[in-house]
């Protein structure tokens, strides 16, 4: 009997456990298995194997019963999810429905989730701009949140590391505010984008339009071919999963790579309940797991634990990791866990038309568009609000057909579309300030299907965000007008936070254990063999799409973890 128990414990023991298989969990798995660690990856959703589990990848539009539309009754039953633009008939199977994992909205918050192997890395927007020194120095300079314990120099080599492997396209733009990296050829700009770029560089000091850096393979190099991935064909159907591996996802890249080492064990249908803390050894010894289908509870053991469950679920798991040493959640002596959650502000959009350059049109397609890095308060504080916004920008010339007639004239018009004029769209991507009053917490009474406490989510915009929204509309309108654009129209939405799908923080990094949860290597200050490297670790949000930074932070922390294990420090 005793032997059976020992064998059973042995079978459930690994060198490392990674909770979550999304964009950061996939990187943790890759780095740890490559360094020889037997690694268990826990994923609460089902398995999604690259290519074979992309059922809609090659379907023509007419093969979808409702031509892509989600039926009305389904939308009504999913008011939160229905606000996610990427949720359509072709991607339905990759999104969590509202009733599958409820949460309590103290204030409106659209929590968009993808519970499956690969998580939301299947669905992401693939924009991959680096942070600069000005982003890491932001909280200290402007006096909010806490100082980041790392600087650009600490993470720069890890940006290079993940860019080379994932395959990122871009130009060497030479901008201090958006450092260059290891890039595949950039996405081409079109005539009107080039025109706007020129006007900005001539007439707006410090404002630049560049080809966005994108995680689509504009060229296949031996590094990606070795992963079984080939060049992006610009199908723009990424969110269905790409049969060519043309964009980076855990499924196409890091997870199969980890599997090839022979060191990976993937366990889908595994809801992480809590990290197990051993009072005598004063460290974590493993993870308690609920099988999502049988609800059976099993403990898995490891020397180190990486928590990469996605920002809000990482907060949930750690807050739920209760012991007599940590009655408020693992590593939560200062009771700041769950607090200082922030996000990105996408509330304003500016559209315009352009009458010039009519000799040109666009033809074919490309996976990327263009990007204007933050220009407000970049090198010094100069406006009535803190921080600033980046802008996604694109120009296009569509074909259209007159639909006013009925009969043969309508049919002819539909079958002979005409070339329309140039139109452009600019979307703000604003930094928000992490605040103690924006937080998630465990509900004292209500639990979910698996017996986990429900999360209270209490997060909102503030006055700084509203000022920034107005500034973005004014500045973009002014820039477009200066470049000769006409019919400039601004829109200011009042969407709830969360729909940006860039939620960050709650388990922030910092120098001081009194005011932060994680140290400069993403270890919990008071439980050093637990690492948090997903969005939960973010001290501030900056303006750049965050995934690339999660990847770099994860790779850096995983390599440090391996070194520390070898030294016997964790």
């Amino acid at each position: 009997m005793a032997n059976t128990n020992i064998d059973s414990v042995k079978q459930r023991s690994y060198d490392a456990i990674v909770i979550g298989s999304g964009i950061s969990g996939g990187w943790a798995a890759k780095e740890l298995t490559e360094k020889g660690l037997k690694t268990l990856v826990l994923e609460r959703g089902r398995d999604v194997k690259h290519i074979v589990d992309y059922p809609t990848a090659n379907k023509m539009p007419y093969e979808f019963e409702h031509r892509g539309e989600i039926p009305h009754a389904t939308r009504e039953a999913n008011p939160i999810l229905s606000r996610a633009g990427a949720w359509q008939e072709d991607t339905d199977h990759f999104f969590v429905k509202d009733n599958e994992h409820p949460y309590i909205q103290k204030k409106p918050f659209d929590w968009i989730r993808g519970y499956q192997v690969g998580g939301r890395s299947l669905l992401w927007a693939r924009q991959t701009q680096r942070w600069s020194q000005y982003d890491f120095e932001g909280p200290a300079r402007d006096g909010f949140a806490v100082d980041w314990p790392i600087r650009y120099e600490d993470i720069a080599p890890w940006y290079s590391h993940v860019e080379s492997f994932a395959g990122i396209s871009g130009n060497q733009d030479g901008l201090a505010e958006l450092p260059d990296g290891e890039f595949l050829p950039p996405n081409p700009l079109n005539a009107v984008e080039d025109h706007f770029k020129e006007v900005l560089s001539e007439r707006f000091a410090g404002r630049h339009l560049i080809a966005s850096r994108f995680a689509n393979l504009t060229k296949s190099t031996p590094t990606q071919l070795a992963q079984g991935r080939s060049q992006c064909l610009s199908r723009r159907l990424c969110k269905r999963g790409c049969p060519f591996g043309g964009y980076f996802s855990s499924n196409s890249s890091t997870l199969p790579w980890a599997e090839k080492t022979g060191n990976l064990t993937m366990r889908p249908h595994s809801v992480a309940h809590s990290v197990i803390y051993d009072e005598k050894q004063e460290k974590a010894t493993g993870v308690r797991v609920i099988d999502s289908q049988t609800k059976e509870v099993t403990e898995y053991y490891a020397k180190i634990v990486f928590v990469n469950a996605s920002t809000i679920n990482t907060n949930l798991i750690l807050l739920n990791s209760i012991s007599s040493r940590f009655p408020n959640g693992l590593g939560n002596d200062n009771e700041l866990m769950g607090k200082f959650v922030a996000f990105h502000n996408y509330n304003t959009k500016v559209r315009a038309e352009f009458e010039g350059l009519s000799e040109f049109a666009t033809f074919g397609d490309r996976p990327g568009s263009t990007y204007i890095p933050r220009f407000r308060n970049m090198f010094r504080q100069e406006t009535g609000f803190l921080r600033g916004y980046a802008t996604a920008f694109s120009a296009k010339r569509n074909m259209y057909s007159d639909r006013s007639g009925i009969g043969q004239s309508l049919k002819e018009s539909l079958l002979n579309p005409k070339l329309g004029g140039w139109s452009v769209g600019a979307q703000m991507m604003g930094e928000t300030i992490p605040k103690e009053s924006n937080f998630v917490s465990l509900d004292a009474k209500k639990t979910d299907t698996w017996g986990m406490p429900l999360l209270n989510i209490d997060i909102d915009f503030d006055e700084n965000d509203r000022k920034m929204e107005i500034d973005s509309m004014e500045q973009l309108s002014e820039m477009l007008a200066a470049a000769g654009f006409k019919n400039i129209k601004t829109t200011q939405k009042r969407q709830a936070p969360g729909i940006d799908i860039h939620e960050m923080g709650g388990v922030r990094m910092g120098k001081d254990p009194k005011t932060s949860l994680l140290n400069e290597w993403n270890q919990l200050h008071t439980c050093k063999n637990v690492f948090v490297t997903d969005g939960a670790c973010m001290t501030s949000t900056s303006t750049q799409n965050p995934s690339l930074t999660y990847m770099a932070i994860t790779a850096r922390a995983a390599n440090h973890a391996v070194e520390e294990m070898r030294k016997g420090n964790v």
Partner: protein
Amino acid sequence: MNRRQAIKRTALLSGGMVFLKYSLLGQASSLPIPDGSTFGPNEERILQLVVDTMIPTTDTPGAKDLGVDQFVLLMVNDCHSEKDQIAFYSGLHSMDAFVEKGFGQSFASCDIDTRIEALNSVNKKSYASPELQAFIQIAKSRTIQGYLESKYVMTEVIPHKMIPDPYDGYYPASKLGGKI
């Protein structure tokens, strides 16, 4: 038969085969229509005639040949609000009375030009009910969608490219019929 007629006849014949191949585009959903709505053989016939009038059969299949009337019903039943559905079915049901009043005959007995005139008059006549206008508006947008996104159009008329051409941001507008 001259050469021109012969070509036209061949086109019609092969067109006829195309019609068979692509009909039964979609089956209307089994979702029940809203309470109090009427949808019988007469309404089915009127809807068919409406889509056929909007995008008629020429030397290529029209909307009815492609089963677009069934697609319109499927979308109304599955993808529209109950308010839209009630207006759609009520408007459809009132078509004959509307046409009778303005044109002195049922929609089905009208010739093609009168049918077009009747549909165009829905937005002009003061006695056209909001439901009838909603019916025409929904039927038209879903007919256009069902036609353009039919397998026939997407494979044989304007072939849909799953893999687009390489991007050219300085493509000559003249090649797309644009003004220089």
